[in-house]
């Protein structure tokens, strides 16, 4: 008996008697062949009392340098935004924390209505009419949009901007290799997707075209132009599409007329959507993204949530749960999981996705965060980040040995190029309690990113913090250049 179980010796004796066996071992003996039984104890440490576990986990935590412990400008996909206290309160409520997927709608109206509200909020944010109830996280949400495109038009190739986050690109490749679609990457020019290369890469064999807004380097893309170009360059070719599908051997879902254009997929940053033109108004078909910035912790990378919104025509190919409105037998408004014939538990091998457990609790945090920000707050926050990001970029780029990596507009993050070894500079900054940002080349693996530093701003990074970064970073670059100069 552990502290989480309740079976006393007396209980056990009575229970065994009711079952009609002599011991618990007998229940196993009668079902599991001895040859596959473990005949020793697991090699794990002995159990601990609650405070011992707490202290062990706290000691581990103390060996991490978190955004609580240093002045951090790390971003690159996850951001140190403030999570309002009411979100913790709500996500820690037993009623939201401990149930599972709302299979029994009569006793799950809370969770179902939250999903419905979440879908509404994501739909508003992206200006796209349909949203599902959550995906695992950002990069795999984009890969799932690829699967949708593949089921939709069966074309054999994806075109992806190099402005996507490297993790997103990698994830897309992993998934696409599985379901048999080739991935072609299109490079950047001055920080944004090379429009010519983009148009050239897309043709009637292009199943989907992917870009990020803002992109990995912080630059705001011309989303409208990219979408239009993709639609134009990729028009036609229904036959090719169908043929491709056959070749790729994709299962099941009927391909509705192998649509006449690639699916345009944008990975967007929800926090910027108060001020950036939303994907739905830029000709994007499917918008996906990482929801961490909305009320979710950094958590060393997860759990957070991904979102997935699309035009109406993709509704019945959406992955994941969707809540819908209906009435009960007494005419009361209520919510249920709907369009389940898309899903694995009904459609099995013909499902539009394999996703089951997703990120309901994180999506709850997301919608509460959006309600908390509100219609005005999301714009104000966007403007604040815009102004501070600009200030930070200009301040840092004015320092010796530091220049902008590109000159595009930036809204919450920007890339610099240092005339010094980034790793060494970052190490120097860390010694002063400043995490200067992400090492671009370490993340992307691109030689062209050498010297690149990606600096993220949130509402928690004040002007004074930025000024401090300037001091520390400036000194670190100077010191490294000096070291280089004397040839050490």
């Amino acid at each position, binding site marked *: 008996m552990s502290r989480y179980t309740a079976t006393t010796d007396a209980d056990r004796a009575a229970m065994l008697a009711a079952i009609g066996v002599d011991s618990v071992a007998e229940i196993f003996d009668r079902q599991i062949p001895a040859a596959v039984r473990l005949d020793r104890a697991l090699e794990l440490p002995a159990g601990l009392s609650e405070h011992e576990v707490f202290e062990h986990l706290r000691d581990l935590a103390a060996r*991490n340098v978190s955004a609580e412990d240093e002045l951090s400008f790390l971003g690159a996909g996850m951001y140190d935004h403030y999570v309002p206290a009411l979100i913790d309160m709500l996500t820690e409520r037993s009623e939201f924390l401990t149930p599972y997927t709302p299979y029994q709608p009569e006793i799950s*109206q809370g969770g179902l209505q939250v999903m419905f509200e979440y879908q509404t909020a994501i739909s508003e944010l992206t200006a796209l009419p349909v949203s599902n109830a959550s995906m695992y996280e950002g990069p795999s949400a984009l890969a799932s949009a690829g699967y949708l495109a593949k089921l939709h038009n069966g074309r054999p190739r994806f075109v992806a901007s190099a402005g996507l986050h490297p993790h997103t690109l990698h*994830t897309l490749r992993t998934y696409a290799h599985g379901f048999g679609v080739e991935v072609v990457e299109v490079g950047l020019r001055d920080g944004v997707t090379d429009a010519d290369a983009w148009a050239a890469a897309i043709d009637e064999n292009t199943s989907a075209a992917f870009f990020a807004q803002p992109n990995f380097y912080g630059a705001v893309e011309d989303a409208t132009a990219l979408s239009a170009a993709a639609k134009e360059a990729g028009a036609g070719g229904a036959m090719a599409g169908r043929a491709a599908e056959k070749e790729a051997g994709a299962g099941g879902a009927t391909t509705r007329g192998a649509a006449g254009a690639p699916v345009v997929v944008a990975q967007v940053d929800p926090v910027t959507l108060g001020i950036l033109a939303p994907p739905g108004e830029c000709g994007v078909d499917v918008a996906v993204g990482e929801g961490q910035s909305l009320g979710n*912790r950094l958590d060393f990378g997860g759990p957070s949530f991904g979102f997935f919104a699309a035009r109406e025509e993709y509704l019945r190919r959406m992955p994941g749960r969707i809540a819908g409105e209906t009435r009960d037998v007494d005419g009361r408004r209520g919510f249920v999981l709907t369009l389940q014939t898309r899903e694995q538990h009904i459609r099995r091998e013909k499902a539009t996705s394999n996703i089951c457990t997703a990120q309901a609790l994180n999506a709850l945090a997301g919608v509460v965060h959006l309600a908390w920000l509100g219609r005005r707050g999301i714009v104000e926050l966007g403007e604040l980040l815009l102004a501070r990001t*600009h200030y930070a970029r200009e301040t840092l780029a004015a320092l010796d040995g530091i220049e902008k990596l590109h000159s595009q507009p930036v809204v919450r993050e920007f890339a610099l190029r240092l005339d010094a070894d980034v790793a060494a500079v970052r190490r120097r900054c860390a010694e002063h309690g400043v995490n200067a940002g992400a090492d671009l080349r370490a993340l992307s693996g691109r030689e062209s990113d050498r010297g690149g530093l990606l600096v993220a701003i949130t509402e928690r990074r004040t002007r004074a913090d930025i000024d401090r970064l300037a001091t520390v970073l400036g000194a670190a670059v100077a010191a490294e250049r000096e070291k280089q100069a004397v040839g050490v």
Partner: protein
Amino acid sequence: MSGAPAQTPQQREQARTIFERGAPGRRAFQCPPLDVPEVDGERLLPARLRRAQPPRLPEVSEPEIVRHYVRLSKRNFDLDSGFYPLGSCTMKHNPRLHERVAALPGHARLHPLQDPERAQGALELMWNLQRALGEIAGLEHVSLQPSAGSHGELAGLLLTRAYHEDRGERRRKVLTPDTAHGTNPATVTMAGLEVVKLATNPDGGIDLDDLRAKADGEVACLMLTNPNTLGLFDRNIQEIARTVHDVGATLYYDGANLNAVMGISRPGDMGFDIVHFNLHKSFTQPHGGGGPGSGPIAVSQRIAPFLPRPLVVRDGDGGFRLEHDGDRSIGRLRGFQGNYGCFVRSYAYICSLGAEGLTDASQTAVLNANYLLARLREHGVAQYLPLAYGQLCLHEFVLSGGPMKRELGLKTLDLAKRLLDHGFHPPTVYFPLLVEEALMVEPTETETRETLDAFAEAIAEILREAAGDPEIARGAPYTTPVRRLDEVAAAKHPVIRQPL
């Protein structure tokens, strides 16, 4: 009491969404004042890139948000309030200690791109968790990356593909028994492979003849849950493994039912090559209303080279780092390093229980399931809801509501709905598909005998009631915030967002 209202305030209230609350201009967020020089907005961001109209998010004060969501929460049933014997989902107690440790800033505010030298606590935790999971599975190579069970399945099938491709083979078929969970076949397709179904034998295991007939050189993998979704252990597992391995295929273990066998029997020892864990099941990450989850995988030596990257490795000096390289890796399945917040919780759980506690958990889960089954039998429930297969079970069991439907005119759905009026979450219904009117019951180890007794009595009472008047259950539930909902209408004319 005549003329008195029968409905609770909650039942009287019509659902209103957050978008239907508040008023223009209300707010909860207070933006810090601009502390940098003001610059012309057009210069920072040209109008053509800007949003013209703000998104119509709610306009509500903080108290309105709190009250809205607290009230909504009360329209949910939850594990902390009542028995939740949802089969295949392992709704075991979620210790609050785990929420506490996961919330420590050193974990919760740790950026995923923090330099490994300055995230040693996190990496050590992951490494320890990998080791523990490897030991429990009997397969020592672990990747924590997948985000949930079905993500683990995808990883597993991509590993299988990579393994075969590495040997120059393009195998396409994946065998799955007809008891398999829906994620298995769905994943097969997503991984670009083809489902081949296997029949179930009278004992609830795999039909060996069918297996032998279908096991050929085109088979990439057999996916199995063991104990399977009937709660039964396939006694032929060694023979199955042999058959599969003989044709060069891999054996995949769907770990959703691991709670039956922790410290009792290990997938690796059964012959499996790849295992996924559901940390949100066996290792008690709270289910969150449908996530987050976490689906680490453990694999054998021959599969290890293909594992997703990055991996947490320990260097000679005792330090930990992230290994990104790996020529033959299938690559990434998501951003960053996986659902670390879930790792913290499950690791805390393993620390709390230790070897003995984990084994005890499985033993007690199995004891509880068999006891509940026995109690139901004592109540004569078996007459209407017989056990679908076998006599005993492991951590869960599946009853068939076929006789109940025929003799009492009650569908499993009606029984489930009537249970709501008794304050219980119903078991899983209509799964696995091969059992008529299936009712799949998984009590877990953290329930008391008293609770199991009460649940058995409630089922018996509903059946007695139905013998008198089946209409009562057919009209159930009566006491919930809403009653039966029209799912057909919802799917026919989908309204999936609030019109504004």
